[in-house]
């Protein structure tokens, strides 16, 4: 299947949640239906690997606005009420309910990822405003002589290629984004572990319609409903956080899960999970967990959305919500430019800059929280364990504490004052729980001091992170510069050189004006 048109206003690479939501947001921002939008994805169907499935109320509100919520519910999505956090399997859980967050939608949405993608793609196809091609991947990017991205070469699975021109390429192709690589946007992506998942039918969850975070084992175990079948059967996703250096491989991972994780799940869920693991034929579903500090989200003619624009450990389940917020923000910018005159890009550099300013405000908060909570929940150091105990101690101190934390965790709150005050309160509780043991009647002073020092060290180490988040919120928008062209131009030359009918690479490079910000060395490198 080939694109119908030679030129599109927007080409979106990646037809997952972020890509489809962005497409729908752009469609809604084009009331006159004059814009051409192309949506492509490398997988002919849905992505085989399991992925994000939990959407906070903030994201569900976006889905509502995009008109996806109802179809998803009909397809089996489950309305969800919040988080149930277990410090250990024998303790009562902490109820972190969405309903307690003021001014926020009271429920989120959880949906099987494959159902999600299939449904929203179906919705887009039914609407017919977005041209969608499955089974093609981005092969090369095109830039014009100002350095702005102006086209993309797509490659089908059979090797055939076709090229389209466009005003904007949106990369929604996930944490390992091909487009990001083609655009040579540097990133500090790091695989921090793996997530293994199993599905349990009619699991006995202590708090139905909640995401359960269960601690005590090597890493956190998550359990949340993802699908309601027509007969009322609920499918629950159980995900296990595994270390980067897996102690075993292949089929032995099942035994590893049974030994190292399942005992730390409350009964009777633990028996159901064990049965599901044992009943699973073939290997478990697994996906790497990646820490991707937010790279530059926009370049002239290019925008990154969703996981392509930064992702963190899924412990806060905020990846999908962030993707939806990206879609929403881009949609807002597109709406502002709905009446842009012909000959001008729909989303020009200024619109992209505004998207970036907004994006750069909420992404650091999300990443800082996910990183800190993941470290605390794994509890490999004195400080991390102190923070973990402190978090539970803090949450148990009253509904206000739970509400404020939940607002931050669910991406509903981003005020720096709230973030800072939560940090200070948690640090205070960490010192408190370090100095006052829970069970020991005569705890040695040396142990108390060691715990307190660990907590203080971790709190100190996180100061930079906190400052970064606070600054991201306080930074004046004018300090975010306009999208800058990239330093390395090699891809430009190759891209143009391989384009059918174009002049040889070196000749073409010679005709290019050096993009703004490019150094003489870049040009030399390209020419060579």
């Amino acid at each position: 299947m080939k694109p119908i048109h030679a030129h599109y206003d927007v080409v979106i690479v990646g037809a997952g949640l972020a890509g489809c939501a962005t497409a729908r947001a752009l469609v809604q921002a084009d009331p006159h239906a004059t814009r051409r939008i192309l949506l492509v994805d490398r997988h002919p169907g849905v992505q085989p690997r399991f992925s994000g499935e939990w959407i906070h109320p903030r994201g569900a509100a976006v889905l509502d606005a995009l008109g996806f919520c109802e179809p998803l519910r009909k397809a089996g999505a489950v309305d969800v009420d919040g988080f149930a956090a277990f410090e250990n399997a024998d303790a009562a859980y902490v109820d972190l309910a969405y309903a307690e967050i003021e001014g926020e939608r009271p429920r989120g949405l959880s949906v099987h990822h494959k159902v999600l993608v299939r449904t929203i793609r179906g919705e887009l196809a039914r609407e017919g405003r977005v041209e969608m091609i499955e089974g093609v991947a981005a092969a090369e990017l095109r830039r014009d002589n100002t350095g702005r991205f102006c086209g993309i070469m797509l490659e089908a699975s059979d090797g055939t290629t076709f090229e389209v021109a466009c005003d904007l390429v949106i990369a929604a192709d996930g944490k390992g984004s091909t487009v990001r690589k083609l655009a040579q946007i540097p990133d500090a992506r790091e695989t921090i572990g793996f997530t293994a998942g199993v599905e349990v039918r009619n699991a006995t969850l202590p708090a139905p319609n909640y995401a359960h975070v269960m601690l005590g084992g090597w890493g956190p175990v998550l359990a949340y409903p993802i699908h309601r079948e027509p007969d009322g059967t609920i499918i629950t996703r159980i995900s296990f956080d595994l270390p980067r250096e897996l102690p075993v491989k292949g089929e032995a991972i099942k035994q590893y899960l049974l030994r190292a994780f399942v005992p730390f799940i409350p009964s009777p869920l633990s028996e159901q999970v064990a049965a599901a693991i044992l009943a699973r034929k073939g290997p478990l579903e697994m996906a790497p967990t990646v820490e991707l500090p937010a790279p530059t989200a926009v370049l002239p003619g290019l925008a990154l959305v969703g996981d392509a624009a930064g992702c963190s450990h899924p412990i806060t389940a905020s990846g999908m919500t962030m993707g939806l917020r990206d879609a929403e923000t881009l949609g807002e910018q597109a709406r502002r430019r709905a009446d842009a005159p012909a000959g001008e890009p729909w989303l020009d550099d200024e619109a992209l800059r505004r998207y970036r300013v907004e994006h750069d405000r909420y992404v650091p908060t999300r990443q800082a929280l996910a990183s800190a909570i993941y470290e605390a929940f794994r509890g490999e150091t004195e400080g991390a364990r102190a923070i973990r105990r402190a978090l539970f101690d803090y949450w148990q101190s009253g509904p206000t504490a739970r509400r404020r934390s939940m607002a931050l965790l669910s991406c509903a709150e981003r005020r720096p004052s709230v973030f800072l005050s939560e940090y200070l309160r948690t640090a205070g509780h960490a010192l408190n729980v370090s100095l006052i043991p829970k069970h020991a009647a005569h705890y040695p002073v040396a142990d108390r001091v060691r715990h307190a020092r660990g907590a203080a060290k971790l709190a100190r180490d996180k100061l930079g992170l906190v400052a970064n988040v606070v600054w991201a919120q306080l930074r004046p928008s004018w300090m975010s510069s306009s999208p800058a062209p990239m330093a390395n131009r090699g891809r430009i030359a190759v891209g143009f050189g391989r384009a059918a009918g174009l002049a040889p690479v070196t000749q073409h490079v010679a005709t290019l004006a050096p993009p703004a910000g490019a150094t003489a060395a870049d040009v030399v490198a390209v020419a060579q």
Partner: protein
Amino acid sequence: MLHAVPPAKPTPTASRGGRIAHRDTAVERALVQLDGALAPWRERVRTAAADGASLRRPESRWLVEIPDVGPTCEVLLADRLLFDLQPGEREAMLAWVRASQDDSGAWLDVHARPDLSLTALAYWALAQAGDHRGSEPMLKAVRVVHALGGAQRANFEVRLWLAMAGLIEWTWLPAIPSELFLLPPQVPMSPARFSPWARGVLTPYLLIARAPARLHLADVSELLLRRQGETLVAPRLTRPGLAGDLLQAFDRGVKLSRKLPRGPLPQLAQRHALRWLDALQQDHGGWFSTRPTLLSLIALRVMGARTDDPRIRRGLDYLRRARGRVPSPGTDAIHVAQGSGAQPLAITAPLLATGLEDRDIAPLLRAQLQDPGPWQSRADAPAGGWPTEPGARSHLDLDATLGALGALSTLPPEHPAAAPAWAASRRATAVMLAMQEGSGAFARFERGEADVFLQRLPWTDADLLAYGRPDDAVHVRLTAAVLQRLAATGLRTEDDRVQRGIDFLARTVGCGSDDVPLPTACAVAGAAGALLPEDHPLRRGLERRIRARQREDGSFGSLHDTTIALGALVDLGHACVQAQRAARHLLGAIDRDAEAFVRGRATHDGGPGLSPDTLDPTSAARHGAAALRRYAALAAQVTDLRS
């Protein structure tokens, strides 16, 4: 053929831990043979668990907890006050004491060394029973006691008996100011900081010494060494040196001060100690183990309790349960001996794990700690883990906890009892982690058990206050075993607690020293294999040391040592030639006589107090089965071994 395979077709077993199939391999035949040797022992454990205090049936008790003749002799002596032993029981116990005497006239400890205290106690028990003192064995025993310095140089327990019998002055025993018992637990000198065994012994001692108790026992003053045949040679209570002299002077001062009016403090301390006794009697009726129980019963009697007092009766029942039939050394006769505990979980649980059955699970789960205990004084964890023996509701034992966890880990996930077993395991894991000392080592009974403040004083009996030393072999092996268990639950060296444990092992075992005993090196190898990369210096050093101990015939010494060494090589990930040779040696030995694996004298170290080692005859069979199974799984060497 490397060895002869018995022609009989192997008997399949339904045991869960064994999982032995019908495959015709040498290893699996050997496993069947070992399982056949272990099965009767497992049955003994089950019978003992189900059977109350009966001694009617032979073999009704399992006897691995029998340490030496010491507790038996003390029970015989204490019967002058407790009036509990039946004539047949007494005779059977005396028969065992007589049968245990060495040709030299001495009674030996479990390491087969002549022991002054044991010899003195055994002689006394026999003399009390009316044995002719002019007989050759009795004369030999007296000569041994004299050769070793006289009964006054025996341990604290013997001197206490001598004092109670009026044969020596009470001043020959260390003075413990009764006011210590009034100190709050957080004060370093408080008895709450003693090891649990020491607390269990010294609390009744305070009451006995304050009374003071007086028992009408046979006069064995011939055991005391006299200067020129007249004056008794007084024992020195402190170690030589200035500090010792000062302490001796302090000791005399305390004893003199007892003659002065001291107000209400001694009475208060006495009442406090009595309350402590009442509070710490366990569900099984005893106080921690046999010796604290015996002294507590004597203390209660001294304080006026009658023999029909419920506390006394329960205590006596506990002692009876901890008594069992034991084969006489060198003969086929079966006698009765007093054990140091009724059913040590550290030994019984791993034995049951070799063939865990459904009926074993409920008692095991019931035995776990449900209530807070004194071990939580310095360990920040909720109640969990297992005590030394079932029914000890407030005494944690990490060794027993490891044994129970090992047994429960053999349960398949689909078993109906898997969930309660998991719940017990996670509580036990939290407890284990809370028992880590600042040094990185793990404590067995209570944190700080090996580092008691008063132990630093130059007392001759000071070591009794603590449980071993912070870096002794017992704590090294325990730490290694805990780390191995934590590794099985997914913890890695990224966790600072695990890393501190590894650092402790590296400090104590070292990477270059060759003088580490083989059992210690093998235990540490288990932890190193589970947690450390192959090129880690500690792991490489252990591997080198273990390899260097192998003999030409493939063994590493005794059968027990060979089994643990093979297990260690497998834990280190090696199915190498040396491991293969060790495996072949074991297969040959099993083929010749599998029963030899349950007849050995492998000791289970770490018993508390005056009998630090107990026998675990099944240890070689258990370790052998586990090592061979892991070896076969690791290297798929079964086929090679057959050819």
